[in-house]
């Protein structure tokens, strides 16, 4: 466990910076620092939290905001499924703890270390995950404390920080040429629907759906 915790430390710096930035944004939407800490402890999923909070700030209905955040988190079905082998011999409570503390970064680290040395497994995952979640809780709460002390940040374009964060996330998710057409479809349809006056939460659902459909069509045509 200690090995995983130590190995994760350099990555924890990145988590802390991201968490701090998220905390500032969440404070801006009215979350107190302890609320942000509670959110980070119970959810522990950066992109999901940032998307839900942005939708919430934009006035989307509560369910719409939660749904947007949850949909983005669906990839964890695959991430957790890939841990089946590593967690096979652990008792259920340990498995539940392991999957809660698993985030993108410590999952990737554990998988790559496990590929190099099969002895690296559940203990490494949990050790790195505990450092990850503690860093996430503390940095987001600290960001919220600082954010609530700062004056009217909207004037300096803080709202645009969400857009920029989404652009960066999209860059990280881009898988090459096969994403170009579906993503253009999603972008164009969502933008057109919003311009035509549709509520953003619904436009996003239609836009994302057309992207998934176009991806599936491309796959069918290729085979």
């Amino acid at each position: 466990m200690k090995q995983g915790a130590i190995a994760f430390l350099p990555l924890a710096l990145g988590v802390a910076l991201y968490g701090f930035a998220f905390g500032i944004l969440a404070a801006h939407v009215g979350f107190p620092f302890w609320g942000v800490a509670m959110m980070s402890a119970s959810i522990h999923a950066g992109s999901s939290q940032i998307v839900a909070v942005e939708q919430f700030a934009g006035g989307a209905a509560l369910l719409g905001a939660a749904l947007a955040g949850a949909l983005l988190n669906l990839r964890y079905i695959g991430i957790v499924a890939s841990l089946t082998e590593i967690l096979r011999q652990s008792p259920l409570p340990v498995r539940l703890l392991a999957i809660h503390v698993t985030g993108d970064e410590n999952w990737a680290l554990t998988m790559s270390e496990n590929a190099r040395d099969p002895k690296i497994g559940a203990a490494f995952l949990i050790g790195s995950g505990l450092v990850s979640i503690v860093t996430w809780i503390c940095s987001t709460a600290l960001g919220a404390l600082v954010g609530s002390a700062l004056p009217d940040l909207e004037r300096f374009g803080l709202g645009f920080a969400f857009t920029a964060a989404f652009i960066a996330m999209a860059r990280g998710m881009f898988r090459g040429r096969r994403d170009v057409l579906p993503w253009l479809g999603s972008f164009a349809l969502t933008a057109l629907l919003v311009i035509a006056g549709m509520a953003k939460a619904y436009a996003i659902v239609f836009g994302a759906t057309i992207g998934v459909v176009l991806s599936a069509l491309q796959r069918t045509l290729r085979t």
Partner: protein
Amino acid sequence: MSYSHWMLIALLALAAATIRIVGLLAGSAIRRSRYAPILDDLPGAIIVSLVAASLADQPGPGWLAAAIALATAWFTRNVIATMVVGVASFAALTNLPV
């Protein structure tokens, strides 16, 4: 914190826990099914739609700042750098004395 703030945390936490437990119990079966690619395609499609939704009602400077943020993200692949450059560009472009 209002009722809505509490509910957002509760709903998201419930969803996050459910998704992780589904992954633990049925993840392998889902990954072998023909619906597996949807799990991989969905996050990107949602994020791109979110960018579109937040830009759609922006005036020109917002789109220009987004282009600058995209270039930053493309070359640095770094969320924090993209946020800093994006917000700075947005603030500079929208506060230009024109």
